[in-house]
């Protein structure tokens, strides 16, 4: 038995506790190895991916260094492009949490896209029925987050109580969510005035979320950072987090200790869905002003990648989301300058993902060899 999967070398609370008890020198040596590994290996994997992608670009007859130079210019190089990066990183932080949180329990959830789409739809549907600007904003964000949370908790409940594989279930739910969005936008919720691009009724300019003070970046960025910090606190500093990590480390031990494993799964997927739903609500409340097919962005799938690179650590999600947001932001420039297809960004993301997964096999490698020699 055992639920789902374990990924690579996620910290496991059981072994941590044992390690903390033994104060031997070897444990202390491992203590400094761990943080070094956990930074050096992902960074190394990303560098390897960049080299591989550079070779790929060179094979298409372009100067790889020039491409990277433009990528940097289009993502972090100028204030304008950096704000574009921040705009993309905000939803990525939230959708990454939708995968990262269940991943700590050993569940591979890919439902961020569907939860985000339905969160946006719910936000738009609620927004037009409220009137005072403040209540519209709060109502939309709450409705979107709740919708995403319930949608994802459904998949969590199927996993916990029926043993339905959560990876496949959430993928299917993504397609169903997009079909629901199309149905509602074309039918019951359609604004008759939206001709070319069927949309819901606009929420009105006064009710839009607006930008952070001094920036051209909307409030979603703040929500993303706060959510990452909050979820980090939840996972590392609370009993819930400890219990959840224990389920991910060894589900049998968790059951023997009387932990409510099924309830923990449902709660973790609910919280993850909450974040993804909020991302959808922010897209509507801060960018589009209504719900339509533009909500289907692929942020949900990029979020999965962010969560895996961040090794399901909510704090690490912030820089990784910035990196991938930057790669996404530079896509337009690559198209214009080098006539590279828009799928270039997806290829680079795929190469990074594969490289990161490969690097899972490198954790603890040198340490194991050293111990074998000593013994």
């Amino acid at each position: 038995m055992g639920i789902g999967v374990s990924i690579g070398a996620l910290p496991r609370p059981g072994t941590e506790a044992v390690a903390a008890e033994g104060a031997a020198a070897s444990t202390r040596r491992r203590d400094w190895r761990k943080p070094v590994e956990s930074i050096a290996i992902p960074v190394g994997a990303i560098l390897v991916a960049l080299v591989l992608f550079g070779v790929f670009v060179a094979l298409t007859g372009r100067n790889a260094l020039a491409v990277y130079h433009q990528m940097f210019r289009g993502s972090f190089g100028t204030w304008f492009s950096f704000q574009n990066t921040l705009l993309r990183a905000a939803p990525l932080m939230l959708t990454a949490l939708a995968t990262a949180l269940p991943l700590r329990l050993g569940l591979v959830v890919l439902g961020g896209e569907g939860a985000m789409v339905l969160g946006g739809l719910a936000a738009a549907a609620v927004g037009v029925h409220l009137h005072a600007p403040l209540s519209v904003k709060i109502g939309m964000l709450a409705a979107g987050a709740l919708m995403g949370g319930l949608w994802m908790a459904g998949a969590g409940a199927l996993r916990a109580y029926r043993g339905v594989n959560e990876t496949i279930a959430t993928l299917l739910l993504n397609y169903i969510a997009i079909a629901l969005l199309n149905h509602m936008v074309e039918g019951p919720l359609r604004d008759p005035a939206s001709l070319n691009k069927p949309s819901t009724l606009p929420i009105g300019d006064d009710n839009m979320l607006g930008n952070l003070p001094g920036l051209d970046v909307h409030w979603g960025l703040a929500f993303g950072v706060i959510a990452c910090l909050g979820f980090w606190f939840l996972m590392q500093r609370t009993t819930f987090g400890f219990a959840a990590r224990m389920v991910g480390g060894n589900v049998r031990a968790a059951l023997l200790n009387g932990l409510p494993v099924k309830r923990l799964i449902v709660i973790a997927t609910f919280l993850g869905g909450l974040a993804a739903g909020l991302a959808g609500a922010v897209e509507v409340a801060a960018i589009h002003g209504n719900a339509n097919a533009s909500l289907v962005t692929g942020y949900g799938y990029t979020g999965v990648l962010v969560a895996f690179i961040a090794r399901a650590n909510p704090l690490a999600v912030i820089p990784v989301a910035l990196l991938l947001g930057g790669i996404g932001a530079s896509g337009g420039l690559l198209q214009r300058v080098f006539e590279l297809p828009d799928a270039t960004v997806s290829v680079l993301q795929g190469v990074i993902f594969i490289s990161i997964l490969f690097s899972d096999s490198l954790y603890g490698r040198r340490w194991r060899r050293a111990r074998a020699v000593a013994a």
Partner: protein
Amino acid sequence: MSAAAGVALGLVGGAVRISTPFLFVSLGECLTEKSGRVNLGLEGTLVMGAMAAYGVSYLTHSPWLGVLAAGGCGVVLGALHAWLCSRPRVNDVAVGIALMLFGIGLAFFLGKPLVGPTAPHLPAVSLGWWSRSTQVRSALQVNALFVLGLATTVLVRFLLDRTRWGLIVRTVGESADAARAMGYDINRVRRRATMAGGFLAGVGGSFLSLFYPGSWNEGLSSGQGLMAVALVIFARWDPVRCLLASLLFGAASALGPALQSVGVTSGYYLFNAAPYALTLLIIVMTSSRDRALVGQPAELQVAR
């Protein structure tokens, strides 16, 4: 013709026409999963196969060479999957997701110049010669790949159940320890099963671009590769049931267009979600918290 008959005909036609990619991907996945490993990346293989088949068919004017190229792409992606999964502590579900994103991205990248030009299609056999109705005749256009799929179903079943090679694959899938004790190289068996499965999935992709819908564009696959993976669970890892399930899914995918053709347009998008909802419903009904599924390889992670 009455509306009900029109819908029924649309569903039968859909079952024959749309089921082929489902069939090839699910047979490939079945083979891979029998060896105890899950390849969630077959969606990427399917799209890569569709692109490669279209490109090669366009360049060589031979659709069958295109089919072979698609299979070849599948073998390469399968080998990549198997190599990554053979590393210690690398999770096969995650590798599948990565290869899915990578395969789709690479296919769109390389396939950019192929959006537009027309490539020669695969031949079809018309089984509707007895009818005067054009609808019946177009519904019963059976593609050569579908016939090949029927033969492959029997072949995979025979390979798995009746040959020494099949026995080794099943042993590895049921108990890696036992297979190792008997001296088999687990990773090699799984690598071959994954590569063979990738070949079949790639061939399934060639059907998309070379017969139906019959062109290359970025919206070609709508998750058929993913549904096929779920379908294997439903089919209880049995090739013949994979065939029946594929026909059922083909019919479900045709529900929206069939209803639209007789004038039912409200809820078009909801009917388009029918295959996904059906897949979900089926895996919910066939899953169980307490016992392993009948026919499930014991080493498999995805069904736990």
